[in-house]
């Protein structure tokens, strides 16, 4: 997804290079359209980046659980504590971000 957006951004940049060839009467409008398209692509890129981030994290968890299942390994108390520690840290960061937003 990120690759696609990057390709579209490059295409947009290439199209921008043709702007001087556009007749004077339409150049401003064409410039505005390209500008809006660039903003939309930038926003899409930000969302896709988050999506890819979550997908990568879930894929890593799945790989770990698959390895456990394949080797018939039981989960240890230390692993469970580490997982819960990650939850607590994430929960703390989430609540802090929410409180910061509420105070603004």
């Amino acid at each position: 997804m990120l690759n696609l957006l990057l390709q579209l951004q490059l295409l947009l940049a290439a199209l921008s290079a043709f702007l001087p060839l556009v007749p004077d009467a339409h150049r401003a409008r064409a410039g505005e359209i390209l500008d809006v398209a660039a903003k939309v692509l930038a926003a899409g890129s930000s969302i896709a980046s988050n999506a890819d981030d979550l997908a990568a994290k879930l894929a890593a968890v799945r790989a770990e659980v698959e390895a456990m299942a394949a080797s018939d390994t039981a989960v240890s108390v230390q692993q469970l504590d580490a997982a819960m520690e990650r939850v607590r840290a994430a929960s703390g960061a989430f609540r802090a971000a929410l409180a910061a937003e509420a105070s603004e």
Partner: protein
Amino acid sequence: MRHPLRVLALACALTLTPACASLELGATRIENPLAAAQTIDQRAYALLHVYAAILEEATDIVADPATPLAFKQALGQAERVATPAADTLHVAVTAYVRARADFDVASGASQPTIQRSATALSIAARRLNEAVAEAQAPIAELEGLIRAHRG
């Protein structure tokens, strides 16, 4: 050439069509780590990590000034339900792992000891199943909100 812009746009579209067709648009596949688990403790372990990953994602969304306030509040409400459920799940799965270790140790002991540890393991397994079922719903709700935000 009367309409150079149109010609250019058409050329771009024609050039890009095969490339776009070969791409899997929206191809960010969301893995389901729970499906890989073979045992109930692995399932619980996967669920805790999945929830942590979802919370990390939710934190990014909340920190984004463009996110509507009502959506942030909905995320906060879902988190307030899901985190205690994850806590209960952690307690239940830890108790289960300990009960299973006790049962393994007791296998060479006397019959009453084996019976006692088997009963304790059975109770721990039942509580863990309940805790997994209770944690899944609020975590899925938070995940659903995040997916909805992504569109």
